Protein backbone atom coordinates (compact mmCIF):
# COMPACT_ATOMS: atom_id res chain seq x y z
CA UNK A 1 0.00 0.00 0.00
CA UNK A 2 1.27 3.47 -0.84
CA UNK A 3 2.09 6.03 1.83
CA UNK A 4 1.75 9.14 -0.33
CA UNK A 5 0.00 11.92 1.55
CA UNK A 6 0.78 10.19 4.85
CA UNK A 7 3.20 11.24 7.55
CA UNK A 8 4.88 8.77 9.83
CA UNK A 9 3.51 9.17 13.36
CA UNK A 10 6.85 8.38 14.96
CA UNK A 11 8.64 11.04 12.84
CA UNK A 12 5.98 13.58 13.66
CA UNK A 13 6.11 12.82 17.39
CA UNK A 14 9.89 13.08 17.33
CA UNK A 15 9.66 16.43 15.56
CA UNK A 16 7.15 17.83 18.05
CA UNK A 17 8.70 16.10 21.03
CA UNK A 18 5.51 14.30 22.09
CA UNK A 19 4.90 10.68 23.07
CA UNK A 20 3.37 8.39 20.42
CA UNK A 21 0.96 7.43 23.16
CA UNK A 22 -0.54 10.92 22.95
CA UNK A 23 -1.44 10.43 19.28
CA UNK A 24 -2.92 7.03 20.09
CA UNK A 25 -5.06 8.60 22.80
CA UNK A 26 -6.29 11.26 20.38
CA UNK A 27 -7.21 8.56 17.92
CA UNK A 28 -9.04 6.55 20.59
CA UNK A 29 -10.99 9.67 21.51
CA UNK A 30 -11.94 10.06 17.81
CA UNK A 31 -10.20 13.41 17.67
CA UNK A 32 -7.95 12.46 14.77
CA UNK A 33 -7.82 9.70 12.20
CA UNK A 34 -4.71 7.61 11.59
CA UNK A 35 -3.87 5.11 8.87
CA UNK A 36 -1.97 1.88 9.46
CA UNK A 37 0.27 0.59 6.69
CA UNK A 38 2.33 -2.55 7.27
CA UNK A 39 1.84 -2.22 11.04
CA UNK A 40 3.17 1.35 10.97
CA UNK A 41 0.94 4.26 11.94
CA UNK A 42 0.64 7.27 9.68
CA UNK A 43 -1.19 10.57 9.90
CA UNK A 44 -2.99 11.68 6.73
CA UNK A 45 -1.99 15.15 5.47
CA UNK A 46 -5.52 16.33 6.03
CA UNK A 47 -5.30 15.60 9.77
CA UNK A 48 -1.99 17.36 10.29
CA UNK A 49 -3.30 20.82 11.08
CA UNK A 50 -5.77 19.42 13.59
CA UNK A 51 -3.10 17.25 15.22
CA UNK A 52 -0.64 20.12 15.52
CA UNK A 53 -3.34 22.23 17.13
CA UNK A 54 -3.88 19.48 19.73
CA UNK A 55 -0.13 19.16 20.31
CA UNK A 56 0.16 22.91 20.93
CA UNK A 57 -2.68 22.83 23.43
CA UNK A 58 -1.33 19.67 25.07
CA UNK A 59 1.97 21.45 25.64
CA UNK A 60 0.04 23.97 27.72
CA UNK A 61 -0.90 21.18 30.10
CA UNK A 62 -4.31 20.25 28.64
CA UNK A 63 -4.94 16.50 28.73
CA UNK A 64 -6.80 14.46 26.10
CA UNK A 65 -10.11 14.66 27.99
CA UNK A 66 -9.74 18.45 28.05
CA UNK A 67 -8.92 18.49 24.33
CA UNK A 68 -12.01 16.41 23.64
CA UNK A 69 -14.19 18.90 25.50
CA UNK A 70 -12.50 21.84 23.77
CA UNK A 71 -12.94 20.21 20.38
CA UNK A 72 -16.69 19.77 20.94
CA UNK A 73 -17.07 23.31 22.20
CA UNK A 74 -15.12 24.74 19.27
CA UNK A 75 -17.33 22.79 16.85
CA UNK A 76 -20.39 24.23 18.54
CA UNK A 77 -18.85 27.69 18.58
CA UNK A 78 -18.19 27.45 14.84
CA UNK A 79 -21.74 26.31 14.18
CA UNK A 80 -23.13 29.11 16.36
CA UNK A 81 -21.02 31.64 14.52
CA UNK A 82 -22.35 30.37 11.22
CA UNK A 83 -25.92 30.63 12.51
CA UNK A 84 -25.20 34.14 13.77
CA UNK A 85 -23.88 35.15 10.36
CA UNK A 86 -27.02 33.79 8.67
CA UNK A 87 -29.27 35.58 11.14
CA UNK A 88 -27.37 38.85 10.80
CA UNK A 89 -27.77 38.64 7.04
CA UNK A 90 -31.46 37.90 7.47
CA UNK A 91 -31.86 40.85 9.82
CA UNK A 92 -30.15 43.06 7.26
CA UNK A 93 -32.82 41.96 4.79
CA UNK A 94 -35.60 43.36 7.00
CA UNK A 95 -33.74 46.38 8.34
CA UNK A 96 -33.20 47.59 4.80
CA UNK A 97 -36.94 47.77 4.13
Amino acid at each position, binding site marked *: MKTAGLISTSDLCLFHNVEINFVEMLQEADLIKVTIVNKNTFIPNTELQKLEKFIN*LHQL*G*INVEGLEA*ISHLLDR*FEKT*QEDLRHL*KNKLRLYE*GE
Partner: protein
Amino acid sequence: MAFIDYYKTLGVSKTATDKDIKNAYRKLARKYHPDLNPDNAEAHKKFQELNEANEVLSDPEKRTKYDKYGENWQHGEAYEQQARQQQGRQGGYGGAGGFGNFTDSESFGGGDFSDFFKSMFGGGGSRQTKYRGQDFNSELHLTLLDIAETHKRTLTINGKNIRITIPAGIENGQTIKIAGHGGAGVNNGPAGDLYIKFSIADDARFKRDGINLYATVKLDLYTAVLGGEITAETLTGKVKVKVKAETQNGTKVKLKGKGMPVYKKANEFGDLFLTYDIQIPANLTEKQKQLFEELSKS
Protein backbone atom coordinates in the same frame (compact mmCIF):
# COMPACT_ATOMS: atom_id res chain seq x y z
CA MET B 1 9.45 52.50 21.74
CA ALA B 2 7.84 51.91 25.13
CA PHE B 3 9.35 49.77 27.87
CA ILE B 4 7.40 46.54 28.36
CA ASP B 5 7.04 45.08 31.83
CA TYR B 6 7.19 41.36 31.05
CA TYR B 7 6.56 40.47 34.69
CA LYS B 8 3.34 42.43 34.60
CA THR B 9 2.37 40.74 31.32
CA LEU B 10 2.63 37.34 32.96
CA GLY B 11 1.26 38.63 36.29
CA VAL B 12 4.25 37.48 38.33
CA SER B 13 6.63 39.28 40.68
CA LYS B 14 10.25 40.02 39.88
CA THR B 15 11.27 37.31 42.32
CA ALA B 16 9.17 34.66 40.55
CA THR B 17 10.84 31.28 40.14
CA ASP B 18 11.13 29.53 36.78
CA LYS B 19 8.24 27.31 37.86
CA ASP B 20 6.08 30.35 38.72
CA ILE B 21 6.78 31.81 35.28
CA LYS B 22 6.06 28.55 33.51
CA ASN B 23 2.79 28.13 35.40
CA ALA B 24 1.73 31.74 34.82
CA TYR B 25 2.51 31.47 31.11
CA ARG B 26 0.64 28.20 30.70
CA LYS B 27 -2.38 29.50 32.57
CA LEU B 28 -2.64 32.68 30.52
CA ALA B 29 -1.77 30.94 27.24
CA ARG B 30 -4.64 28.52 27.83
CA LYS B 31 -6.89 31.53 28.18
CA TYR B 32 -5.68 33.48 25.16
CA HIS B 33 -4.49 30.77 22.76
CA PRO B 34 -5.65 31.60 19.19
CA ASP B 35 -7.02 28.09 18.70
CA LEU B 36 -9.29 28.63 21.69
CA ASN B 37 -10.27 32.15 20.63
CA PRO B 38 -11.19 31.98 16.96
CA ASP B 39 -11.78 35.37 15.30
CA ASN B 40 -10.66 37.22 18.40
CA ALA B 41 -7.96 39.69 17.39
CA GLU B 42 -7.58 40.96 20.95
CA ALA B 43 -6.82 37.47 22.25
CA HIS B 44 -4.31 36.92 19.43
CA LYS B 45 -2.51 40.12 20.38
CA LYS B 46 -2.50 39.18 24.05
CA PHE B 47 -1.14 35.75 23.19
CA GLN B 48 1.74 37.32 21.26
CA GLU B 49 2.54 39.50 24.24
CA LEU B 50 2.52 36.43 26.50
CA ASN B 51 4.86 34.58 24.16
CA GLU B 52 7.23 37.47 24.11
CA ALA B 53 7.24 37.80 27.90
CA ASN B 54 7.73 34.05 28.27
CA GLU B 55 10.51 34.05 25.70
CA VAL B 56 12.45 36.50 27.84
CA LEU B 57 11.60 35.44 31.37
CA SER B 58 11.87 31.68 30.83
CA ASP B 59 15.39 32.03 29.51
CA PRO B 60 17.99 32.68 32.24
CA GLU B 61 20.32 34.69 30.02
CA LYS B 62 17.60 36.88 28.58
CA ARG B 63 16.01 37.36 31.96
CA THR B 64 19.32 38.41 33.46
CA LYS B 65 19.80 41.00 30.76
CA TYR B 66 16.24 42.22 31.08
CA ASP B 67 16.56 42.45 34.88
CA LYS B 68 19.95 44.11 34.68
CA TYR B 69 19.06 46.93 32.33
CA GLY B 70 15.33 47.21 32.96
CA GLU B 71 14.05 50.49 31.65
CA ASN B 72 17.56 51.39 30.47
CA TRP B 73 17.59 48.45 28.13
CA GLN B 74 18.25 50.79 25.20
CA HIS B 75 21.78 51.32 26.48
CA GLY B 76 22.30 47.65 27.34
CA GLU B 77 24.31 46.75 24.27
CA ALA B 78 26.56 49.76 24.73
CA TYR B 79 27.27 48.72 28.33
CA GLU B 80 27.98 45.18 27.22
CA GLN B 81 30.33 46.30 24.49
CA GLN B 82 32.17 48.56 26.89
CA ALA B 83 32.50 45.76 29.42
CA ARG B 84 33.83 43.37 26.78
CA GLN B 85 36.38 45.90 25.59
CA GLN B 86 37.57 46.39 29.16
CA GLN B 87 37.86 42.65 29.65
CA GLY B 88 39.83 42.41 26.39
CA ARG B 89 42.24 45.09 27.51
CA GLN B 90 42.72 43.28 30.79
CA GLY B 91 43.62 40.11 28.91
CA GLY B 92 40.43 38.26 29.83
CA TYR B 93 38.15 36.33 27.53
CA GLY B 94 35.77 38.02 25.18
CA GLY B 95 32.44 36.94 26.60
CA ALA B 96 29.58 35.18 24.96
CA GLY B 97 29.07 37.81 22.31
CA GLY B 98 25.42 38.55 22.63
CA PHE B 99 22.28 37.05 23.95
CA GLY B 100 20.93 35.11 21.04
CA ASN B 101 21.71 31.52 21.91
CA PHE B 102 18.43 30.41 23.45
CA THR B 103 16.90 26.99 23.69
CA ASP B 104 13.39 27.52 24.97
CA SER B 105 10.97 25.13 23.38
CA GLU B 106 7.84 25.75 25.42
CA SER B 107 6.40 28.73 23.67
CA PHE B 108 4.96 28.63 20.19
CA GLY B 109 2.90 30.59 17.76
CA GLY B 110 2.82 34.34 17.25
CA GLY B 111 6.20 35.17 15.76
CA ASP B 112 5.48 38.87 15.82
CA PHE B 113 7.66 40.34 18.54
CA SER B 114 7.55 43.92 19.72
CA ASP B 115 10.10 46.51 18.68
CA PHE B 116 11.19 46.51 22.31
CA PHE B 117 12.03 42.82 22.13
CA LYS B 118 13.86 43.12 18.82
CA SER B 119 15.83 46.08 20.02
CA MET B 120 16.89 44.35 23.20
CA PHE B 121 17.44 40.82 22.00
CA GLY B 122 17.71 41.21 18.24
CA GLY B 123 15.72 39.42 15.56
CA GLY B 124 12.45 37.84 16.47
CA GLY B 125 12.90 35.22 19.15
CA SER B 126 15.51 32.60 19.86
CA ARG B 127 17.67 31.05 17.21
CA GLN B 128 16.45 27.56 17.87
CA THR B 129 12.76 27.89 18.60
CA LYS B 130 10.53 27.87 15.55
CA TYR B 131 7.66 30.29 15.53
CA ARG B 132 4.66 30.25 13.30
CA GLY B 133 4.17 33.55 11.50
CA GLN B 134 1.43 35.98 12.35
CA ASP B 135 -2.02 35.43 10.88
CA PHE B 136 -3.23 38.28 8.69
CA ASN B 137 -6.84 39.38 8.49
CA SER B 138 -8.28 41.22 5.55
CA GLU B 139 -11.74 42.27 4.42
CA LEU B 140 -12.83 42.16 0.81
CA HIS B 141 -15.80 44.27 -0.25
CA LEU B 142 -17.85 42.85 -3.10
CA THR B 143 -21.20 43.39 -4.75
CA LEU B 144 -23.85 40.77 -5.41
CA LEU B 145 -22.86 40.79 -9.07
CA ASP B 146 -19.23 40.07 -8.08
CA ILE B 147 -20.30 36.80 -6.51
CA ALA B 148 -22.68 35.73 -9.26
CA GLU B 149 -19.84 33.75 -10.83
CA THR B 150 -16.69 32.11 -9.49
CA HIS B 151 -13.75 34.21 -10.52
CA LYS B 152 -10.13 34.92 -9.65
CA ARG B 153 -8.90 38.19 -8.26
CA THR B 154 -5.49 39.50 -7.33
CA LEU B 155 -5.24 41.14 -3.93
CA THR B 156 -2.33 43.07 -2.54
CA ILE B 157 -1.77 42.15 1.08
CA ASN B 158 1.18 43.72 2.90
CA GLY B 159 2.85 44.52 -0.42
CA LYS B 160 2.47 40.99 -1.80
CA ASN B 161 0.17 40.08 -4.65
CA ILE B 162 -2.00 37.07 -3.92
CA ARG B 163 -4.30 35.57 -6.51
CA ILE B 164 -7.38 34.06 -4.94
CA THR B 165 -10.49 32.36 -6.20
CA ILE B 166 -13.71 33.97 -5.12
CA PRO B 167 -16.36 31.26 -5.08
CA ALA B 168 -19.76 32.17 -6.45
CA GLY B 169 -22.49 32.49 -3.84
CA ILE B 170 -20.22 33.28 -0.90
CA GLU B 171 -22.15 34.78 2.01
CA ASN B 172 -21.76 38.17 3.58
CA GLY B 173 -19.49 37.81 6.62
CA GLN B 174 -18.06 34.47 5.48
CA THR B 175 -14.31 34.05 6.00
CA ILE B 176 -11.93 31.94 3.96
CA LYS B 177 -8.45 30.92 4.99
CA ILE B 178 -5.52 31.10 2.58
CA ALA B 179 -2.99 28.85 4.26
CA GLY B 180 0.59 30.05 4.43
CA HIS B 181 -0.07 33.59 3.19
CA GLY B 182 0.22 35.28 6.57
CA GLY B 183 3.40 36.63 8.11
CA ALA B 184 6.66 34.78 7.60
CA GLY B 185 7.65 32.29 10.29
CA VAL B 186 10.62 32.90 12.53
CA ASN B 187 13.60 30.56 12.54
CA ASN B 188 12.18 28.54 9.65
CA GLY B 189 8.83 28.25 11.39
CA PRO B 190 5.76 27.94 9.17
CA ALA B 191 4.15 31.07 7.75
CA GLY B 192 0.88 32.25 9.26
CA ASP B 193 -2.41 32.14 7.41
CA LEU B 194 -4.37 34.84 5.65
CA TYR B 195 -8.03 35.17 6.61
CA ILE B 196 -10.24 37.02 4.16
CA LYS B 197 -13.64 38.13 5.33
CA PHE B 198 -16.15 38.87 2.60
CA SER B 199 -18.36 41.89 2.94
CA ILE B 200 -21.15 41.84 0.38
CA ALA B 201 -22.74 45.24 -0.13
CA ASP B 202 -26.49 45.69 -0.17
CA ASP B 203 -27.96 45.79 -3.65
CA ALA B 204 -30.39 48.49 -4.69
CA ARG B 205 -32.43 46.08 -6.81
CA PHE B 206 -32.31 42.79 -4.93
CA LYS B 207 -32.47 41.62 -1.36
CA ARG B 208 -30.72 38.39 -0.58
CA ASP B 209 -31.73 35.70 1.86
CA GLY B 210 -29.30 32.83 1.57
CA ILE B 211 -29.56 31.52 -1.98
CA ASN B 212 -32.79 33.36 -2.83
CA LEU B 213 -33.21 36.88 -4.13
CA TYR B 214 -36.20 39.16 -3.65
CA ALA B 215 -37.24 42.15 -5.73
CA THR B 216 -40.26 44.39 -6.06
CA VAL B 217 -41.52 45.05 -9.57
CA LYS B 218 -43.83 47.89 -10.54
CA LEU B 219 -46.78 46.66 -12.58
CA ASP B 220 -49.16 48.95 -14.41
CA LEU B 221 -52.84 48.57 -13.56
CA TYR B 222 -53.90 47.53 -17.06
CA THR B 223 -51.41 44.64 -17.27
CA ALA B 224 -52.42 43.59 -13.76
CA VAL B 225 -56.11 43.56 -14.72
CA LEU B 226 -55.88 42.20 -18.24
CA GLY B 227 -52.71 40.15 -18.03
CA GLY B 228 -49.72 40.39 -20.34
CA GLU B 229 -45.96 40.23 -20.30
CA ILE B 230 -43.30 42.30 -18.60
CA THR B 231 -39.53 42.39 -18.71
CA ALA B 232 -37.99 41.75 -15.30
CA GLU B 233 -34.42 42.25 -14.22
CA THR B 234 -32.50 39.34 -12.76
CA LEU B 235 -29.02 39.52 -11.27
CA THR B 236 -27.38 38.62 -14.54
CA GLY B 237 -29.78 39.92 -17.18
CA LYS B 238 -33.37 40.52 -18.20
CA VAL B 239 -36.11 37.95 -18.64
CA LYS B 240 -39.67 38.07 -19.92
CA VAL B 241 -42.34 37.19 -17.36
CA LYS B 242 -45.96 36.43 -18.14
CA VAL B 243 -48.49 38.20 -15.92
CA LYS B 244 -51.80 36.52 -15.26
CA ALA B 245 -54.98 38.51 -15.70
CA GLU B 246 -56.49 39.89 -12.47
CA THR B 247 -53.18 39.88 -10.66
CA GLN B 248 -53.56 41.35 -7.18
CA ASN B 249 -51.26 43.91 -5.61
CA GLY B 250 -48.51 42.20 -3.56
CA THR B 251 -48.69 38.97 -5.57
CA LYS B 252 -45.40 37.05 -5.48
CA VAL B 253 -44.04 35.06 -8.41
CA LYS B 254 -41.08 32.74 -8.34
CA LEU B 255 -38.48 32.71 -11.11
CA LYS B 256 -36.87 29.35 -10.59
CA GLY B 257 -33.08 29.23 -10.77
CA LYS B 258 -32.70 33.00 -11.08
CA GLY B 259 -31.42 33.51 -7.54
CA MET B 260 -27.88 33.27 -6.20
CA PRO B 261 -25.56 30.46 -7.16
CA VAL B 262 -25.30 27.85 -4.42
CA TYR B 263 -21.91 28.09 -2.69
CA LYS B 264 -19.50 25.47 -4.00
CA LYS B 265 -22.22 23.63 -5.91
CA ALA B 266 -21.79 24.06 -9.63
CA ASN B 267 -24.90 24.80 -11.68
CA GLU B 268 -27.18 25.03 -8.67
CA PHE B 269 -29.05 28.24 -8.07
CA GLY B 270 -31.62 29.67 -5.73
CA ASP B 271 -34.78 31.41 -6.90
CA LEU B 272 -35.78 35.00 -7.56
CA PHE B 273 -39.06 36.12 -6.00
CA LEU B 274 -40.79 39.10 -7.57
CA THR B 275 -43.46 41.01 -5.68
CA TYR B 276 -45.82 43.05 -7.83
CA ASP B 277 -46.42 46.64 -6.83
CA ILE B 278 -49.40 47.69 -8.89
CA GLN B 279 -49.29 51.30 -9.98
CA ILE B 280 -52.54 53.27 -10.02
CA PRO B 281 -52.58 55.52 -13.07
CA ALA B 282 -52.26 59.24 -12.36
CA ASN B 283 -53.07 62.39 -14.37
CA LEU B 284 -56.08 60.75 -16.00
CA THR B 285 -57.68 62.41 -19.00
CA GLU B 286 -61.39 63.22 -18.90
CA LYS B 287 -62.06 60.25 -21.14
CA GLN B 288 -60.14 57.89 -18.89
CA LYS B 289 -62.03 59.18 -15.86
CA GLN B 290 -65.33 58.52 -17.66
CA LEU B 291 -64.25 55.02 -18.53
CA PHE B 292 -63.33 54.31 -14.90
CA GLU B 293 -66.71 55.70 -13.77
CA GLU B 294 -68.43 53.36 -16.22
CA LEU B 295 -66.37 50.49 -14.91
CA SER B 296 -67.28 51.32 -11.35
CA LYS B 297 -70.98 51.21 -12.23
CA SER B 298 -70.74 47.93 -14.11
